[in-house]
């Protein structure tokens, strides 16, 4: 369910608008709606999540109805409809990764960060969630961190600790 607590107003920079135009140019005239998914990725990377105002402005840019944006944003799991931590750690929780310890990694992550799945750490740095297959089954357990979706493979409790410590120190 789309449930929004934030009425954040966003402005798209000229750099972002140029990127939008480049994407729209990949499709035949009149088919600019095809640019919707990549544009939503760009907006999310810029603002951290897809606020209602951001989605409305994307609709306006593409000359489509806001509902067309909302129904796409709510269908695909990569789009974040609530503000999240600066780093969203997404752990693959599907079969092959679980065979090699993904559930243990999720338990460790919860313990290390001190927040449950979907919650944000008090410092606003981290949130985490289990996601379905990340298509890296031979290198499991794996996690990814947006917006670049950097992959971390063959995870252990120690490597997760190291990763979190590195990200924390980078932000200080």
């Amino acid at each position, binding site marked *: 369910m789309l449930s929004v607590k934030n009425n954040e107003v966003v402005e798209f920079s000229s750099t972002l608008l140029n990127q939008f135009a480049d994407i729209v140019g990949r499709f035949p005239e009149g088919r600019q709606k095809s640019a919707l998914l990549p544009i939503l990725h760009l907006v999310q990377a810029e603002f951290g999540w897809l606020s209602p105002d951001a989605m409305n402005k994307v609709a306006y840019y593409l000359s489509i109805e806001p509902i067309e944006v909302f129904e796409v944003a709510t269908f695909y*799991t990569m789009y974040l409809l609530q503000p999240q931590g600066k780093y969203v750690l997404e752990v693959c929780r599907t079969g*092959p990764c679980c065979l090699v310890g993904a559930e243990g990694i999720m338990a460790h992550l919860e313990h290390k960060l001190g927040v449950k799945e979907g919650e944000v750490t008090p410092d606003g740095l981290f949130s985490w969630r289990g996601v*379905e*297959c990340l298509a*890296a089954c031979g290198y499991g357990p794996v996690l990814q961190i947006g917006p670049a979706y950097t992959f971390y493979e063959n995870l252990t409790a120690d490597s997760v600790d190291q990763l979190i410590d590195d990200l924390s120190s980078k932000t200080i």
Partner: protein
Amino acid sequence: MARKLLLTHIDVPGIQTFDVYRQNGGYRSVEKALKTMSPDDVVEEVKKSGLRGRGGAGFPTGMKWSFLAKPEGVPRYLVCNGDESEPGTFKDRFLMTHIPHALLEGMIVSSYALGAHTSYIYVRGEMMPQIRILERAIQEAKAAGFLGKNILGSGYDLEIYVQPGAGAYICGEETALLESLEGKRGNPRIKPPFPAIAGLYGCPTVVNNVESIAATVPIINDGGEEYAKIGIERSTGTKLISASGNLVKPGVYEIELGLPVEEFIYSDEYCGGIANGKKMKAVVAGGSSVPILPANLILKTANGNNRLMTYESLADGGFQTGSSMGSGGFIVFDEDQCIVRNTWNFSRFYHHESCGQCSPCREGTGWMEKVLHKIENGHGDLSDIELLWDIQRRIEGNTICPLGDAAAWPVAAAIRHFRDEFEWHIKHPADALIRNYGLAHYADPLVPVVS
């Protein structure tokens, strides 16, 4: 050492780049096709090769191409399906990461054969690094004159674009992928019409898997007949297999079709056997949707012959004792793994990924997940096994797209081959919970973890 066609130069430093790829024979098929062959010649070679779609369905690629409608004045499209997300399958990710130009080379040859002047590579959104790799490769190929206007002076124009998905397994289904590419929710379309008649923007479109498109490169370089000499019967050529689970050496391997399954699992050239010296319990041979087989049945067919890595041999005996090549996602379970827990895990995946269009899938996948979860967490009843059987039977064949079947088959196969394990969970709930102690609370926070 087995013959390789796609991964021949995988260990060459810098093979990701255009220059190194070209120095190692890259883009020869484009030169050959555009300078010496007509589009129909290319289609004919692919037909001769016997290449079958490497995405899972195994439909003959050349035949699929020949179905493409060719009305005058209407654009045709080639769309590459890089939305790899079948649990157990990660071969396309490997290919796009390490030899992106092999995919681009195949895209150019295939687009030429189909008369497409704009082609799209739809890559699952989680693979942003691979998307960037492909975009860089496109720029390199364009700078070298292999993309854009009048490629190699042939008069043929082609642009290729990469489109990201956004996290939806269903978009691997070709019509859902086209909906997504049009900027919509990934709801599969009712077929007919098939994409070859009315695909992207209602225009004739071919959707092929990443590996299928890359495979056209050696077919054009060496000829379809040479390609068809590799493999056995109607399983020609080589195949990328993604191996995962409890193996000594999980990873992506290129095999010649016809390799014995036992050799693939146990030889040092491939998976190196079961990790930690354990025994093999079961295998899912073609990605999570295909039926699981216990160890004895994955090694031998119904007739007692060695089971081979071919479309025919893996399916030998049908769903009673066989499985399927599927997408080549080979998941191996050691003796300590819980089949009930894995079946629940797969069910959760399909419930999560159902697009919700069809009632049997939308309701049935969730129902199966709940019942499996109940059994896994020590609250099951023996009648639940029959209930699961009944639900999966009501889903299979009753949905617009194959996701319903994909959700039903793993449950049916797990019950067929491992019913005693389901019964053990039901009869010994406390023991089952203790076995999964520390993990159960991820199944459902409402079910207390045993203490």
